[in-house]
């Protein structure tokens, strides 16, 4: 079965991938320090560790899975969204990626579906339409169980 997929445009380039296959989760665009094996999100040119500060860094893709460190549910519409899903509010979480970074992004789902320690997966979420394209953000969704 084929579905017509509208082109998806990131709200800001340089933070996450947009897979050609809509079934595939996006990955976060990060940096690895080649001297200290420290990983960062978002991308940066210089390793932040005070004892390192190396410029020997490389672009890497992070995720798409992580562990929920903390969460909240914001009782306000998501700023800049015309998606009805965001009208009543939205979840926000801190997610620990297996490579090391802790990231802070919106969550898919309701308050009662979030649990510290659960595994989540990144997904793209439409914020609004722009002509024939969808403007998307990246967020994390709790996996079953």
């Amino acid at each position: 079965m084929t579905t017509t997929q509208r082109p998806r445009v990131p709200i800001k380039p340089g933070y996450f991938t947009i897979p050609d296959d809509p079934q595939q989760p996006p990955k976060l665009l990060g940096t690895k320090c080649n001297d200290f094996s420290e990983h960062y999100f978002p991308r940066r040119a210089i390793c932040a560790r005070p004892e390192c500060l190396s410029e020997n860094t490389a672009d890497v893709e992070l995720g798409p899975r992580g562990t929920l460190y903390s969460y909240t549910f914001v009782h306000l519409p998501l700023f800049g969204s015309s998606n009805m899903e965001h009208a009543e509010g939205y979840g926000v979480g801190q997610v620990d990626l297996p490579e090391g970074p802790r990231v802070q992004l919106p969550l898919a789902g309701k308050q009662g579906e979030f649990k510290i320690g659960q595994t989540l997966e990144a997904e793209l979420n439409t914020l609004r339409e722009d002509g024939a394209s969808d403007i998307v953000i990246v967020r994390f969704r709790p996996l079953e169980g």
Partner: protein
Amino acid sequence: MKDVAVLGVGMYRFGMYYDISNAEMARQAGMAALRDAGLSFRDVQAAYVGHIFAPVMAGVRVMKEFGLTGIPVQHVENASATGSAAFREACLQVANGTYDIVMVLGFDKMTTMIQQSTQGTSPENMEDAILPAAFFALWATRRMHERGMKVEHLAKISAKNWNNGALNPMSQRQSAEPTSVERVLKSRPVAWPLTTMMSCPMGDGAACAIVGRADLAKKLHPERPLVRVTASDLQSEKYSRGHLFMGPVVGPAQMTIDTSANVYNEAGVGPEDLDLVQVHDAFAIEELEYYELLGLCKRGEGEACVERGDFELGGRVAVSTDGGLIARGHPGGPTGLAQIWETTLQLRGEAGKRQVKDARIGLCHMMGGGSVCVIHILQKG
């Protein structure tokens, strides 16, 4: 820090003033501080001005309200810690011997920002979803998980600050009735578990401190207790694994621990010596965390202290005596100077109904988004 004193303080009460300009509020706060010091603007040798929401040049323009004397005027900005950071610069210059008398002025109008934001700016940043309330709510959820904190602890801290604010004529939030834990819990949710009454309001306002040589303070007001600034420190974030780079409002807990260790060391006092403390309680969960990070109690004992009322007026060490950011308000630029205003009055014994008995040592703590931590210690005598 040697021989630096607060010579005078003044405030324009924080509130929502759609028809009053920054220049008007700042002039009134500044003139009140000069009168309090017993000085004329002719005596002021330099000025540090802080604002967050006003346009470029606003500080140097507002300073013209006092007269055009040609003194150096320097803008200082450090988000919520703007007023505290400006105060620090003035103290350092007096301690270094560069100037004898310096004005520190903070002002801001969040009402202007509210009017502008309704004109529809489009979000283009990944961080736009992470509101300050959401960021600090994440602290609260994690603390519930790790330490068994209950939402009632946050409500009790908030009720304390609302009730302290009711005793402060300069407080933005003035509740005629005593504020109960139940009333706070019933207020509108913002970001679970935080509610409106556990969060600081938006507002406008101005505050001013005149900083100068300690011997001048004695000459100007021989009858009045001397209020010395005995320690000042400012730190930015230090990296450790799990550091949040995107969306965070303020950095790791270690920043407050390290900054407070430095000021305790500089002043030669410990947290057990403090009589009163002001913190960056933009949200109630912050105040609970800072009890522990500033060493007012051991890690993990914050909830028990709240239940006992350790940090209420009349408790072991009074925290947010003027109502804190939650009640007194948090316009931005002047907030850190409101803490200096309150601590100065308390150390002089002029704090009225909220006076802390025999107050001798006070600490003022602010966080600025980005982020930085600024702490000062003020001592009587």
